[in-house]
């Protein structure tokens, strides 16, 4: 079997932590910008962010959806600090949920609100990256214990 060399779990965890931290930054900015009744500033001008932030979809039960984003990214950041199956699965499930939600929100932006907010796109991209990283992490390292394992996976040994 020709297997692409899997990055070590430690590397994956480091990248996940970094991307999740970026995500916390983006989601926090959207929340703060929106909290005063305003909207995030679009980098290239245009009113995309205003339209999106003022749409009825920007809040669920009165809570800005960016808050859900912050919670998701914090969870993902936390899972990067542990090397066990629990962290791998919670990380994967959170990133999967976040990715699914991002797909839905991007659909709304394109076809219902008909406006694009770069900050939301940025978050969707980060969440997609996190979903891929966490999938690699789960598939590559589920059922193994911490660091030892990565050598086994690196050598291309298949457990079953």
């Amino acid at each position, binding site marked *: 079997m020709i297997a692409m060399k899997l990055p070590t779990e430690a590397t994956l965890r480091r990248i996940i932590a970094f991307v999740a931290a970026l995500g916390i930054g983006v989601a926090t900015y959207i929340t703060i910008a929106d909290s005063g009744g305003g909207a995030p500033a679009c980098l290239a001008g245009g009113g995309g962010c*205003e339209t999106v932030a003022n749409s009825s979809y920007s809040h669920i039960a009165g809570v800005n959806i960016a808050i859900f984003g912050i919670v998701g990214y914090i969870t993902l950041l936390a899972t990067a600090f542990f090397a066990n199956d629990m962290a791998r699965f919670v990380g994967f499930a959170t990133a*999967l949920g976040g990715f*699914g939600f991002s797909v839905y929100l991007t659909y709304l932006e394109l076809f219902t609100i008909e406006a694009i907010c770069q900050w939301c796109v940025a978050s969707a991209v980060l969440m997609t990256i996190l979903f891929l990283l966490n999938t690699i992490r789960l598939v590559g390292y589920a059922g193994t214990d911490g660091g030892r394992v990565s050598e086994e996976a690196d050598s291309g040994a298949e457990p079953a």
Partner: protein
Amino acid sequence: MSNKREREKRREERLQEETKVDSGERRTRLLQLGAGAVFLVIVAVVVLIVVNGNEDSGGDAQNLKEVSAVDSLVSGIPQEELVLGDPTAKVELIEYGDLQCPVCKAYSEEFLPQIIENKVKDGTAKVTFRNFTIIGPQSAPAGAAALAAGAQKRGWEYLELFYRNQGKENSGYADDEFLTAVAKGAGVKDIAKWNKEREGSKFTDEVVATTEEAQRLGLTGTPSFAIKGPNSNGLELLGTPGSPEEIEDAIDNAG
């Protein structure tokens, strides 16, 4: 001695084997769970998108709601263009809004009635609506339609009735038929004149001008409020106040 070592070795091997089987099982279970979660999320996203597509977009021109409620809210209060209240009132509260904006609808239904009742009816303040069109292509024609209704002293009935019958943003509900139904419901007498004026450059330009004004003021969301009075520091921006009481306090402070 060698026997003992042999036994220990076997024992270790067995333990390793068990751990391997155990971790293999754990891995299989986790991957199965993961696959299940992927399936669930795909189903959830598809359901959300389908439900969203089928949702009633509202904004029913054939069946306007709350015509009489709107009438009793503003009847008897002087109005000129989109200014509601005594023209000589010392304090002017300005709302920058978009008729398609759902948050503006909430403000119109939950905040403004209290302001109108407590501060506008007694002549303390007047409220001015200025179009700040940010939601979509139908926002500007709707704003011009309100201005044209204002020219017949029915502007505030128009705004309030529009909000109470607002449909889902950019669903296409705010078409000519809907705008006309709202005009009729708001009591605009000369519909032909209203029709001509709402498409004329005077009001369409005004919508653009007030939107640019809002942008110049640095406003980024609707509704945004501003206030002007003898004790205010020129035009003071209030942002999006969290309660009607906050707006009342601002009126008291400015007056």
